[in-house]
């Protein structure tokens, strides 16, 4: 088939070597390929990351199988590795963080999206964003030297006096432990809940609010019964996002959780988290099995946050797309 250079179809261009060369000679194509390579590098890195975690944890996966997740013994000397105390600690501290941070963040987002004048709202959001930019080791520093003593001398005894009948608030007050780590985490994730929820709330069409107000609802009723439900999927998204942050947060937790692989009902008890054990033991791990078990913990952490983040992005995407589908934002 004879093709003149100018009348070549895209299929011809892709397959004929001469045409390919001609295409590549043009600067446009070079720019295209270079930028494509950069974008593909990102995908490559992600795939490689998963691959490395998977391959390097092979030894531990083969040796322990699923029992890795339900065994509570972590004894590097005896070669016994069970992830349960770390998974437990990670989940408990994150749960404490969410309980504290979600009301604070969503409440704040309501204020910023519904009540505050735009200028005040944007500067307060900026301050909250700055809070998100504070390095986690700084939170850890304040946690160790400020929060831990306060917890030990004031907050934990007070909780014991008032809520001591619950198993959650029993046992000696060390200052360090699940509760302290949860509080530090809460402070760290509030900005995420706040700024994402605010955006989602702002994406709710104006008519919805006005319709509710026109029906005689108070400002609060229109917000709580109309705007927040309309934005609830996105708010869930922001909570998942914050949860993913909390699960993977390393330094601040390591510094205040107590670093003791034990499972206890009491929030006052020292514990351990996945990220904290990685931070503490990874560089000192001796032996392939030890390292492999730690990397499997990393894999668990990766998968947890990966799934949560994926879900969160999807939820936020759905809400803001729906909101902006009605009104251009």
């Amino acid at each position, binding site marked *: 088939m004879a093709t003149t250079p100018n009348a070549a179809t895209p299929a011809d261009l892709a397959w004929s070597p001469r045409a390919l060369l001609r295409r590549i000679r043009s600067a446009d194509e070079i720019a295209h390929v270079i930028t494509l390579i*950069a*974008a593909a590098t990102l995908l490559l890195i*992600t795939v*490689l*990351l998963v691959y490395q975690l998977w391959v390097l944890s092979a030894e531990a996966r083969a040796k322990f199988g699923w029992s890795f997740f339900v065994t509570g013994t972590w004894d590097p000397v005896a070669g016994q590795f069970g992830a349960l105390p770390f998974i437990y600690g990670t989940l408990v501290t994150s749960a404490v963080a969410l309980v504290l941070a979600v009301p604070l963040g969503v*409440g704040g987002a309501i204020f910023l999206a519904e009540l505050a004048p735009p200028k005040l709202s944007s500067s307060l959001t900026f301050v909250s964003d700055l809070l998100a930019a504070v390095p986690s080791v700084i939170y850890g*520093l304040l946690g160790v030297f400020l929060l831990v003593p306060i917890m030990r001398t004031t907050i934990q005894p007070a909780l014991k006096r008032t809520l001591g009948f619950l198993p959650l608030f029993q046992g000696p007050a060390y200052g360090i432990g699940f509760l302290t780590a949860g509080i530090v985490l809460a402070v760290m994730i509030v900005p995420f809940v*706040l700024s994402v929820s605010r955006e989602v709330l702002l994406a709710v069409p104006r008519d919805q609010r006005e319709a509710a107000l026109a029906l005689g609802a*108070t400002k609060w009723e229109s917000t709580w019964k109309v705007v927040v439900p309309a934005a609830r999927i996105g708010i869930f998204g922001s909570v998942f996002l914050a949860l993913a942050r909390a699960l993977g947060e390393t330094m601040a937790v390591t510094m205040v959780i107590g670093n003791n692989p034990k499972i206890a009902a009491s929030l006052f008890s020292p514990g351990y988290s996945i990220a904290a054990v990685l931070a503490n033991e990874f560089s000192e791990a001796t032996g392939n099995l030890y390292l492999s078990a730690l990397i499997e913990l990393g894999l668990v952490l990766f998968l947890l946050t990966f799934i949560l983040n994926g879900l969160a992005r999807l939820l936020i995407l759905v809400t803001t797309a729906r909101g902006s589908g009605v009104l251009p934002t």
Partner: protein
Amino acid sequence: MNARLMWRKTLNVTMLSLTGVCVLITVSVLFFILGYLVYNGGKDLSWNFFTRLPAPVGEVGGGMANAILGSLKLLFLAALFGVPIGLLGGVYLSEFGGRTLPFIVRYTADLLNGVPSIVIGIFAYALIVMPMHHFSTLAGGFALGIMVIPTVLRNTESFLSEVPSSLREGAFAMGANKWKMVATVVLPAASRGILTGVLLALARVAGETAPLLFTAFGNRYWSPGWMQPTSSLPVIIYTYATGPYEDWHRQAWAAGLVLLGLVLVTNILVRAFLSRGTSFERS
């Protein structure tokens, strides 16, 4: 009926003020952190802090010059590795991409952005430290570089897509190629936003500790070249804060103040820079 109305109005005022309290609590935390660090770290900041090596335990004085230089070297490597990939990837998404691949890249970038930094550290450990058999500045810089990519990429893309299409059409009408249009018209128009994105990404990784623990590790002395373990500000804050010595704790506060100051000043400057108006008005 009247009682019900009263109740509704009371509820209205109460709940709305509570939301205000939520914001107040959140915002005041930042000022509290800043104030507390200035109070605790300010008195230990001195010229020596920036110019001297850490003193042996028990000896008063000494500084963190090696950690500051180490952090700068790590950031340089991170920028060298992460910024070009992020920048070009962002250009691809905004200018050259079709539909499916950009969506995948965008989604992956967001997911990579959410990967815990300690896991990135494991990745750099597996990729660089294990083959080399020792910790190095290079491995630390690589880990931080990976964390820079998604932020720069997404940010570049969003600022590029804000450039009005009339500018692009104008360039085409003048007979420019696509790459010429991108390089001489679109990128300069978005340069301010892109630059600030790069700065923010670097400010973020400047405070990262977890990925450095087993890549750049730490070093009590200067770290010559790029293949030796190096000290860095975040790691030394962690080491000193969890160490047993009173003198270390004071140094940790000072280092914390320096780190927080750098991060906050960068963020605030970037914000001020951006709010001076973009180089084009969105219609």
